[in-house]
């Protein structure tokens, strides 16, 4: 990098941004309040809230709500903006099972099921096991660490884990080294072989996110009253029975919350696939397909249709979330 231009142009920009942006934001609210105070007493309570929520509502509307509506419209149009009805959808959903977006849809289903289940299972197992050892916080940090790194770095890490050399040569990738060295089987081309690559990629993603599930489930586990577990044990219940009959049912609400979050993550999956295969070798997912349609094919109508398919998959989760939220609010 060029240090001269860095010091003369970029560093000042950064300083201006760090000082200026907060100044503008604070200035907005102070000036706004100043104006509100000029208003008659009766008008203030009805104006003030909009001053405070205004910017947020503007950004959410401008970047999420309105674009979502426009995308719904674009999905019914050609890239030039002419109305074409459901042509884009027909093209994306035609030629079942291998044409259009079907490979991506199939893979998103794999993600949805395997990613969610494995993360929940690992998260639960780790939370329960770690709860019983004194060095809990240390092992938790280590499991949680992948959460801090980017999916891009995660993709690089796992490409390297899945590195392949032809049979007979020294395997430098960890997974294939274990396969050939310990299990005495042939190495696999994890990333390119369509029989296994989706599972390999999902496995990498599971590794990255398990810490998230573990931390939340572990907090829920700590919330279970100790005397309840003690009572079950005194009644002669074995550890497995205690888990199945006491711990698991009490943790069910948290498992559901984590599960719905993971379902949304699975549907939106992009980075890991983009880095590991670019969606090639039958590993495409909807988010990546949309990106490719938009940038490499310039097919805005098709990209919008794929995004709408994604939304259709999210809507049940969204409704479920809103119901849960209102139930929680009602109890407040």
């Amino acid at each position, binding site marked *: *990098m060029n240090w001269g231009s860095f010091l003369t142009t*970029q560093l000042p920009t950064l300083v201006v941004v760090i000082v200026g942006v*907060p100044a503008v934001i604070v200035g907005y*609210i*102070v000036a706004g*309040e100043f104006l509100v105070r000029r208003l008659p007493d009766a008008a203030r309570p*009805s104006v*003030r809230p909009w001053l405070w*929520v205004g*910017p*947020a509502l503007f*950004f*959410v509307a401008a*970047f999420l709500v309105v*674009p*979502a509506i426009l*995308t719904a419209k674009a999905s019914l149009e050609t890239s030039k903006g002419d109305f074409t009805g459901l042509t884009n959808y027909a093209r994306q959903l035609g030629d079942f099972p291998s044409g259009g977006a079907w490979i991506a849809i199939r893979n998103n289903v794999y993600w949805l099921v395997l990613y969610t289940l494995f993360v929940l299972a690992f998260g639960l*197992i*780790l939370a329960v*096991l*770690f*709860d019983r050892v*004194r060095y809990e916080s240390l*092992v938790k940090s*280590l*499991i949680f660490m*992948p*959460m*801090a*790194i*980017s*999916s*891009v770095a995660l993709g690089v890490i*796992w490409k*390297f884990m899945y590195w392949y050399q032809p049979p007979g040569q020294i395997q*430098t990738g*960890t997974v294939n080294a274990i396969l050939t060295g310990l299990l005495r089987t042939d190495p696999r081309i994890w990333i390119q072989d369509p029989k296994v690559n989706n599972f390999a990629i999902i496995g990498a993603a599971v590794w990255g996110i398990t810490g998230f599930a573990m*931390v*939340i489930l572990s907090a829920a586990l700590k919330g279970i009253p*100790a005397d309840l577990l003690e009572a079950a044990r005194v009644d002669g219940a074995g550890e497995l029975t205690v888990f199945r009959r006491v711990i698991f049912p009490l943790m069910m609400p948290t498992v559901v*919350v*984590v599960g719905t*979050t993971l379902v949304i993550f699975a*549907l939106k999956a*992009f*980075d890991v696939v*983009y*880095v590991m295969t670019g969606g090639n070798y039958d590993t495409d997912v909807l*988010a990546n397909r949309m*990106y490719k349609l*938009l940038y490499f094919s310039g097919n*805005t109508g098709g*990209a*919008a249709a794929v*995004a709408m398919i994604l*939304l259709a998959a*999210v809507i049940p989760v969204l409704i479920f*979330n*809103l119901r849960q939220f209102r139930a929680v*609010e009602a109890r407040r």
Partner: protein
Amino acid sequence: MSIAVADRPGTAATAARFSPRWISDRLSKVVLHVAVIGLTAAWIVPTAGILVTSFRPFSKISTSGWWTALAPSFSFTVDNYSKVLGSSNLGQSFFNSFMISIPGTIIPIAIAAFAAYAFSWMKFWGRDWIFLGIVGVLAIPLQLSFVPVLSFFVAHGITSANLSWAPFLPVWLAHTGYGLPFSIYLLANFFRALPSDLFESAEIDGAGTLTVFFRIVLPLSVPALASLVIFQFLWIWNDLLVALIYVGGAPEVAPLTVTLANLTNSLGQGYHLLTAAAFFSMIIPLIVFLSLQRYFVRGILAGSVKG
């Protein structure tokens, strides 16, 4: 987080020494520790592998697994780092990541704090429904917004190629829009839990809304704000998709994630360099994570108690 760890499996202590019960308790303890340590070890293998590899010379990387480097004779080198930092624009990208992440963290959180305050302590028409709407927006895939927002930006010249004085403006605005629902949600939950007596006594003392917000609400909310800042910062630092869409891959503006993703495609045979680049990109998140983990975890817990 470590309160209830101490004496959960309490029945073990009561069995007499060397009785069958004592032996089976001991055995299950051993199995437990083996399982815990084994699983944790398995979990750090991928990270350890890339860390070790990034310090190995190329000739070794291509002929033996990284684990062989852990036995003598040791041969480690920083060649991979100096080569990849010298030949790619990782240094520039590192700076760009800061340029994107810092405003992308400050702007949405400041705006969200105002909104969250209004949602939790002001009464206005449609308040609860609007808040419900924001909770619903949390689940909308960002992908849905790319086509319209990008075409709007392009049509009005708000692109990083066009704005040489503020090449990151589009991505700041985008991260503001995308980060707001979660930030509002988390902060409103926190603000609402503050005791209402605080506000009443402040009002009796004649304090204005601004004073209450800046002098009472914000200082009391430092833990929530801290976890949100860490969350949003790491999210943006690690983000690839939004950066690809709104900044693109031009070397002057690409953040670390984009540059690293480009390297994975271009460095087909230079894999040894990629390990160094990947680890380089992880430095800041790891520092943030290791030093501020407590807040990070708290943020996750606060954010996930949603329905």
